[in-house]
């Protein structure tokens, strides 16, 4: 058991450097969507290899996906952010109903699988098993909980306070972002980058200030960075910027 514990402890914090297709955030415009309504969901996708991908979103109750549920599929894109409308079709419950919101970014050449997801609600409930045959690098699957009820609380919004200018190789650069809106006590921030790495991360709930430290790599290059803020109240907001690292 000790060995396994050491193994578990060896991982440390999740990596902040992204080298493959990743769905980083799915931010519904409403923390609690009204049942049956259309809600826009903004999706941030890291696509460092600039693969030609398509994005699909669908929502299911925790237990299973309803027959006849819908799946929204976007057009092929190679960017880093896309917004899609998602219909919320679960019955209205007296109390808030948790959903699982699924996001799938998949290489366009495998997009025919999305038809299968559309046709079979069981596949949508367990998408991992359907994707098992694909190379890991050809898709990115993510999920999050989403509450559907009668409320309509606006999520937090993140505004980037200071965009660092080009960083020098091996330099450490502080990046500040300010969150507008109310942060809960459990508010967290998650920085990601396709170039270099992030070190220190802190969130000041009172002031809404997010402070992260970008560590430039030893070689110059251009990449993209994100700060994903979970506001502690169910809302998600992101900010993204281009990172450039130059020689001293």
């Amino acid at each position, binding site marked *: *058991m*000790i*060995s*396994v*514990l*050491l*193994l578990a*402890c060896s*991982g440390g914090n*999740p*990596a902040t450097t992204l*080298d*493959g297709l*990743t*769905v980083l*955030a*799915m931010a519904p415009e409403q923390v609690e969507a009204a049942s049956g309504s259309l809600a826009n969901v903004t999706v941030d996708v890291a696509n460092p290899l600039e693969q030609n991908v398509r994005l699909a979103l669908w929502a299911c109750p925790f237990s299973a996906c309803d027959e006849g549920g819908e799946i929204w599929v976007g057009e092929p894109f190679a960017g880093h952010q896309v917004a899609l409308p998602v219909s919320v079709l679960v019955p209205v419950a007296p109390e808030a109903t948790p959903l699982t919101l699924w996001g799938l970014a998949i290489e366009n050449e495998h997009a025919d699988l999305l038809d299968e997801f559309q046709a079979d609600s069981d596949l949508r409930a367990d*998408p*991992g*098993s359907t*994707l*098992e045959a*694909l190379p*890991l*690098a050809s898709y*990115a*699957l*993510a*999920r*999050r*909980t989403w509450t559907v009820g009668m409320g309509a609380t606006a999520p937090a919004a993140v505004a980037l306070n200071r965009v660092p200018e080009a960083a020098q190789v091996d330099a450490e650069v502080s990046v500040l972002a300010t969150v507008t809106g109310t942060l809960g006590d459990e508010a967290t921030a*998650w920085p990601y980058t396709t170039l270099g790495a992030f070190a220190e991360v802190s969130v000041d709930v009172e002031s809404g200030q997010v402070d992260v430290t970008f560590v430039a790599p030893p070689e110059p290059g251009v990449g993209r960075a994100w700060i994903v803020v979970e506001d502690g109240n169910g809302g*998600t907001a992101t900010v993204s910027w281009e990172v450039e690292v130059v020689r001293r």
Partner: protein
Amino acid sequence: MWTLLSVIATAEPTPPPEPPPAPSDQAPAEPAQTEAAPPPLAPVPSETTPNEPVAEPAAPPPEKDAPEPFSEEAPAALEVTVSGKRTPSDPTVRVLESDVIRTLPGANGDAVRAVQNLPGVLRPPLGVGSILVRGTAPEDSATFLDGGRIPLVFHFSGLSTVVNADLLSEVAFLPGNASVRFGRLLGGVIDLRTDFELPESSTGTLSVDFIQATARAAQPIGERAAIVASVRRSYIDAILTPVLSSADMAVRAPRYYDGQVRLFGETRAGTRWEFMALGSDDAFRIAGGDDQPPDAIQIGLGTTFWRARGRAFQPLDNGWQSETMLMTGHDLQTFTFEVDGRAEERAPVLGLRQEFGRPLAPGRPGLRLGLDFEGSDEQFVYDVPSFGPAEAGGALRIAPAAYAEATVRTGPLTWIPGVRADYWWLDLGKSLVHIEPRGVVRAELSAITDLRLAAGLTGKAPTVRQVHPGSDGNPDLGHSEAWQVSAALETRPARGWSAEVTPFGSFGRELIVGREDRLQFFSGPPPAGELDTGDYANEGVSRIFGVESLVRVSRGRWFGLLSATWSRSERRDREADPWTLFTYDQPLALTALASFDANKGWQLGVRGRYGTGNPYHPVSGRTFDLDSRTYFPTFSETSERLPPFIAFDLRADKTWTFRTWELTASLELQNLTPVPNVEIMAWSDDYGEEEPLVGIPPIPVFGLRGDW
């Protein structure tokens, strides 16, 4: 680092040692000598004598390598009769005498590590402290001390056996088809055995090495009693803690200690008696970390147990003997996680064994009748928020068992039918009965060859937690059980040579499966691949096939051993599931070992090991959970194998003999391997890359030992 071993040499009571005598070869024409015929005052564990098929029940001839306890004859400095002892009702018993253990390369003097050289024992991943027997899980096998169960065989991660080898006379390994004396298991048995050999004078041992320090003393009390005591303390924590720790986190490497006190003797009426107390304590901690005080425990593991027992062997009329053992103790396992997480299992335990036995003799069968009682008040708490909802509960467990066995000879055949009945009761209003028929037929094919066929049922009751309603248990659970079969063919073709081939099988059914997602104490790697998160149920089945072979030679100054195990172990957890390779399936395990007495106090040894890599399920998919910001893998249903394990060990011992004491220095180079061995498959945080965990690099272990 967790497989570092220490030098636990065997203290023989009468230094200075004699020059190595002729090896105690077993005469091919005298197969009876290969039986476990004890010396008159040897411990006579009941499985070795009461129904001994040899027709000398009153005075079996002393074994050639077993000195008279009260004689002046010094025991051999190097006993090389490694195995071959067996008992009629245990078709396959492989015994290692403590003298042999002392200098075996790779074992580093440890009693049970030496057993891992034998066929039937598979190598655990990372060399962790568990025994894998014939393709079964570690928890399916059991460890006994003179027939009384102890909860632990190794200190953390296999650093050392929990009982000092100096107090043991031998270690018996029964890979399957154990006699009815042993129960409540599905795999094999390791029986640590003491004897009643009295020291003729005060003796002592002091040894130190890279890992631990050991002190032992033996003192005769009058002419018919003696006391032996041993204490041991590891200090690898002091060495490794600074290495493993970082600026903000302190890793407290494993530390353990154990101690044993044994008072024993024999009355003039021939009753051998004993009082023994032993205890063991292990601890491992990781402290400090982000925003935490340096001494705040982040992860802590502890295992503590103690036992106190009284034991007596009494000769009765008409060749009958009585063995009585009363044992009590306490077991405790703890796991602490961060500030508010704690899991604990604790149980005061009580054990009683009463056995009457009579050896086989001309005109009358051998008989064995016994009662094997276990009781415990088992309490558990699992309150670690990171691992799900809290659980707590407990129950009083009463588990008496009765067993009977006969030994009948008809011509060249010896028949040993037996039956064991286990009753299991919890004060939760639940009880179970399990009847286990077992039998052995031995055929003496020639003066040097015999065949032993065995079949029998074994069973294991559920744990309290698995049935407790307060912890989401299943009160309808029954015994897991397994039919074990084997056919052991053994021959001794020439003096000092023996060879054995044993096909075996084990067919488990109604195995308890489910709830693999729960935090639990485990002795091996945790479940891998997709976890069975369903409710507990008796739905699992297993099938294990294999062949063990062992060739050993003990000639002159040489001792050699070649063991091989071919096996396949498969399981199916639920009826709808496919059969899959079991986590511990290892198709081939090979060990070649040689030891040479080079004279002038030098003893040299080498060991080579090969083992097929364990199966693992590759990651076939992954999902990024945005709530927790962690990846959850999907594992492939088809398994792949880790690369094979290959390693060599070299050992050299040099003994200087002085007038009143002797000093032995040893150097063991462990884990000499051409490439680092992959032990467990691990993955990067996003499960995108395989990052296998490799074994430890080559390690030199130096030790000093003084005996007087």
